[in-house]
């Protein structure tokens, strides 16, 4: 049952409430048989129903409960029209004397969705409408109110006064009332178990029913019980309203939701707070099994418990995202759910993009490291081949030449001996050059000892005073160590070849996860004269996600500064 209502209808209902309420209060007061507290209580109950109903109608437009509550309030007032001395109003009041009962029952059984679910509640409500509206209307023409009670005005619908018929009708109504009451009790108990969120409302309904039953059954307690019943009745619309207000969005919650967009947050926790349900869980649609996947705080899959409901909050690329609530959301402001859904979608998409970016970055990083590793492995292989192959062979050849030269010395062919000696000398020089070349390709000390020993060995060979400032460094992954070493080696070579420096300072430093390499000389300050050596190294450093900067100022010297991350995943060893 979809009910839509314009603002005008709501205003009309409100105005009707005011008119009827005032009329009823005035009539009750004028009647004289009702004490003041009773007038106040019944008027309040009606007014509260009208107000709560209007409030609910504004908040949840599609839900018929709001208008139903207004009607209950109007009916409560209308029932008092029979107190009027005006025959027309009096007669109208007779027709609607019991009209609030079916409306209240309808409201209780339809609350909070506004729908009567199942045949039994529908039948109950229909039966009550018949018993409380149709039967009294049928009986009305057969009671001569003015004749029976001198203070009453004329019954304008009177046909004939038939006390026997009307007594029978009253008995029928009472019997129907008993059967309906039993049915209602069963229906309420079933709702009690199915919808825990409704319990406060149901308690009110049951308390009211109990009070009225006690009042009807035990004559002496009538006054007290009926008063309690009326108080309970007042509280009932208040309970509805409180429930609605409690679930109303607070500015702070919405702000928190928006702040969630900025960084990483516990979305579940935040939604639980915003939607007022601590047990809230977030679910994702599994397109494969075409089911919802709900996880608890530990990420374990959970099935939904009875009484829980799934609310779709947002649609993401992977399908809908939903929340499981233990609480009833019928009375929630749909705008809150919508806002929550928007935030969930944005956060989820943001997170997904972030994850994708991270994955891409990690992949690029891995590729860079792999390339550097590959190049290093190749250099290492070449170095080993030179050392173990060519260099050793050359040493053996040089040795042979020396031995031949020694023999010639003893046998006396000085010219040939001289030739052999100079050839051997040339070979020796070639061996030294080869050794330096191999070491420059990939220093063994780097593989075996790490960065500091390798740099120390490099400095020992450098024909320049080089000062090394370094803490004890741990071992890093080979690409990091090799790159750092080559930066130092290239900077020192440049200082030697191009800048005319007389001293060099090498500083190695490690902060949380980055290795800082700084090589400063006191030369003429070379920026681009360093050639492709430093440029190639900058590529290498970038491949490891680091950066390299060269500063050159005449008179101040050249400073090469490189930073290489050594943190995860580079220091996996």
């Amino acid at each position: 049952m979809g009910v839509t209502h314009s603002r005008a209808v709501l205003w009309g209902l409100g105005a009707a409430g005011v008119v009827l309420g005032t009329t009823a209060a005035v009539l009750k007061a004028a009647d004289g048989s009702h004490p003041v507290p009773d007038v106040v209580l019944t008027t309040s109950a009606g007014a509260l129903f009208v107000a709560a109903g209007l409030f609910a109608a504004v908040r949840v437009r599609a839900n018929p409960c709001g208008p139903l509550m207004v009607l209950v309030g109007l009916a409560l007032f209308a029932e008092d029209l029979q107190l009027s001395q005006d025959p027309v109003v009096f007669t109208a009041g007779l027709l609607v004397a019991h009209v609030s009962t079916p409306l209240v029952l309808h409201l209780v059984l339809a609350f909070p969705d506004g729908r009567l679910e199942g045949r039994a509640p529908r039948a109950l409500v229909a039966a009550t409408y018949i018993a409380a509206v149709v039967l009294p209307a049928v009986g009305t023409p057969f009671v001569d109110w003015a004749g029976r009670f001198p203070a009453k005005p004329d019954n304008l619908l009177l046909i004939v006064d038939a006390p026997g018929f009307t007594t029978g009708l009253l008995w029928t109504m009472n019997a129907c009332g008993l059967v309906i009451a039993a049915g209602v009790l069963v229906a309420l108990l079933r709702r009690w178990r199915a919808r825990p969120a409704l319990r406060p409302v149901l308690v009110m309904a049951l308390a009211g029913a109990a009070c009225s039953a006690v009042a009807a059954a035990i004559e002496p307690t009538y006054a007290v019980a009926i008063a309690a019943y009326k108080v309970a009745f007042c509280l009932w619309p208040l309970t509805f309203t409180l429930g609605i207000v409690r679930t109303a969005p607070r500015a702070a919650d919405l702000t928190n939701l928006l702040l969630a967009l900025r960084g990483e947050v516990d979305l579940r926790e935040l939604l639980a707070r915003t939607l007022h349900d601590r047990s809230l869980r977030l679910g994702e649609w599994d397109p494969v099994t075409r089911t919802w996947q709900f996880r608890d705080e530990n990420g374990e899959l959970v099935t939904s418990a009875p009484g829980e409901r799934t609310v779709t909050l947002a649609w993401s690329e992977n399908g809908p995202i939903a929340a499981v609530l233990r609480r009833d959301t019928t009375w929630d402001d749909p705008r809150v759910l919508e806002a929550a859904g928007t935030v969930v979608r944005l956060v989820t998409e943001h997170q997904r993009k972030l994850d994708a970016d991270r994955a891409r970055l990690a992949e690029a990083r891995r590729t860079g490291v792999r390339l550097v590793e590959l190049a290093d492995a190749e250099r290492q292989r070449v170095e080993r081949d030179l050392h173990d192959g060519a260099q050793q062979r050359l040493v053996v050849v040089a040795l042979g030449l020396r031995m031949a030269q020694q023999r010639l010395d003893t046998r006396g062919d000085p010219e040939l001996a001289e030739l052999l000696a100079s050839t051997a000398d040339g070979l020796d020089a070639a061996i030294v050059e080869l050794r330096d070349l191999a070491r420059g390709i990939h220093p063994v000390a780097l593989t075996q000892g790490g960065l500091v020993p390798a740099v120390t060995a490099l400095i020992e060979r450098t024909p320049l005073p080089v000062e090394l400032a370094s803490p004890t460094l741990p071992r890093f992954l080979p690409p990091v160590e090799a790159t750092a070493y080559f930066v130092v080696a290239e900077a020192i070579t440049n200082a030697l070849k191009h800048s005319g420096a007389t001293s060099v300072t090498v500083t190695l430093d490690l902060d949380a996860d980055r290795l800082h390499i700084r090589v400063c000389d006191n030369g003429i300050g070379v920026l681009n004269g360093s050639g492709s050596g430093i440029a190639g190294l900058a590529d290498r450093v970038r491949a490891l996600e680091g950066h390299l900067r060269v500063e050159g100022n005449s008179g101040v010297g050249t400073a090469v500064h490189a930073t290489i991350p050594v943190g995860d995943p580079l220091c996996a060893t």
Partner: protein
Amino acid sequence: MRDLTVVLTDDAALFREALAGVLGRAGFRIRAQLGDAAAARAAIAEHRPDLAVFDIRLPPTHTLEGLVAAAEIRESHPDTGVLVLSQHLETRLLRMLVRSSSRGVGYLLKERVTGIQDFVDAARRVATGGCAFDPEVVRALTRGDPLGRLSEREHEILSLIAQGRSNMAICEQLRLTKKTVESHVRSILLRLDLHPQPDDHRRVLAVLEYLRPWSEEAYRLALPPPRT
């Protein structure tokens, strides 16, 4: 004087044969030629040679197996002189070799073999309990003398001391009088704040120790990383 015995360990057979030729011709008796450290240990335990020559790189990892084996031999066979040959020299490795004494130990570049006589002299010194450190080691060590405390001549003499030469040998090589050399040596030790030592070997050790103050940490860092 009996012939000095020697065990050679190098996985490069060509070079090992050439080395055996040089030492054999110089009067050494080659007891065994081996290609890896395990075999070398067994052979040295069996022959108890005067001299064990190791290539610093040996199978299986070709990193420092030869050096590690040499250091062990120095512990277990103090009478065997140990000579380590390397394609290139690193001062950080000296500590492993020269732990408590510089007796019967040498560390030379492989290519020194071609300076046949010098090499044979060095081998003989090590075999008879002396020491022989490559001139490059000393150059590398003293290059870092930032205060410039030593004169050129003193550097030269210090280098020869580290190579294991006696004062007498230094006199001959530099064509100086014994007195001059002795006064230079005293001056070197004084400038380096070292107490004069009567023993040549301890003198060498003291110089090496002074020039490169090793720490246990530096020693550990010099070891190859554990392979996984």
